[in-house]
């Protein structure tokens, strides 16, 4: 079955490690360029909001961080499912790698939301539906990180984390719909796939740059965490031993290619 070959290859941590190594410098350059341009544009060149003034500029990090907090949960849950169903080692490694990144981005969206809330709503925190469901998302991420270190057996840790990740997906549609179901404090979405955005293009373009920048950044960081997990779990295999020996004096994790792999 030639069409399934890529799938089996994808299951090989060694293949994944060597394949993704050369991508890292490119992803770094693209992510940092997008994020720097988007930040400068959003902070200094886009106009102020006529209602909220300058505090609205927090949108340029708050919305992309929240997007990736949710997208990162999909990544983690899908990898958990793939790991459970096909017993793919690599899927569990990606799942484990996704948890701290998702937790950090959820934390960023909660903190920037709180800071934005103070001048806009007059309060740092409110038990609003959107905010509460995002807090639950943070606890899900932290729960998975805790489960990962709670077991002696690698297999038990992976399986139980995958199950928690899958159960936690119940929270995702609640987060999306919370601003429509309970119209409390958080404003409804400014960007929707199904309709025209409700913000002006002078604010939309830097926001889109930041969102794309956050996606590329996420991909980069997910690769870095996964690669670290791969070498640790595969430490006893021949190819990692070879990697340890061959990796010259520079010792950077990106140059993990031996000659025959190139």
């Amino acid at each position, binding site marked *: 079955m030639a069409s399934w070959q890529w799938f089996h290859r994808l299951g090989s941590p060694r293949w994944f490690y060597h394949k993704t190594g050369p991508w890292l410098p490119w992803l770094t350059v693209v992510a940092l360029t997008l994020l720097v341009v988007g930040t400068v544009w959003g*902070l200094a*060149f886009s106009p102020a909001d006529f209602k909220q003034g*300058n505090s609205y500029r927090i949108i340029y990090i708050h919305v992309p961080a929240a997007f990736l907090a949710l997208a990162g949960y999909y990544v983690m849950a899908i990898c958990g499912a793939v790991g459970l169903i096909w017993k793919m080692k690599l899927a569990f490694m990606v799942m484990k790698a996704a948890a701290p*990144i998702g937790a950090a981005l959820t934390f*960023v969206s909660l903190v920037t939301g709180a*800071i934005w809330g103070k001048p806009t709503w007059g309060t740092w925190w409110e038990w609003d539906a959107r905010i509460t469901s995002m807090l639950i998302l943070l606890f899900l991420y932290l729960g998975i990180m805790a489960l990962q270190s709670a077991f002696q057996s690698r297999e038990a840790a992976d399986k139980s984390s995958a199950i928690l990740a899958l159960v936690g997906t119940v929270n995702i549609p609640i987060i999306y719909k919370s601003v429509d179901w309970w119209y409390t404090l958080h404003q409804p979405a400014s960007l929707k796939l199904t309709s025209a955005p409700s913000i002006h293009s002078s604010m939309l373009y830097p926001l889109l740059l930041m969102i794309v920048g956050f996606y590329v950044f996420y991909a980069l960081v997910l690769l870095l965490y996964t690669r*670290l997990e791969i070498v640790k779990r595969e430490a006893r295999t021949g190819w990692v031993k070879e990697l340890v*020996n061959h990796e010259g004096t520079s010792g950077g994790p990106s140059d993990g290619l031996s000659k025959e792999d190139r």
Partner: protein
Amino acid sequence: MRFYFDSLSDFVQMGTHGPYVWASFGITWGVMAYLLLSPWLRQRRWLRQQRARVRRDQAAKSAQR
């Protein structure tokens, strides 16, 4: 496209919202720098430790002979 603010101090203060905006961006960039550097540095350290262990093992073996 042009600089939105009248002056640099106007840019820093952003009306009264400067502290909120700058704190948000500062925290975000800080967290992102950590996300980027932490796995990279940890992997570098891990590879160094492994290499040192291999060298120790080899030294022990040759001392036995």
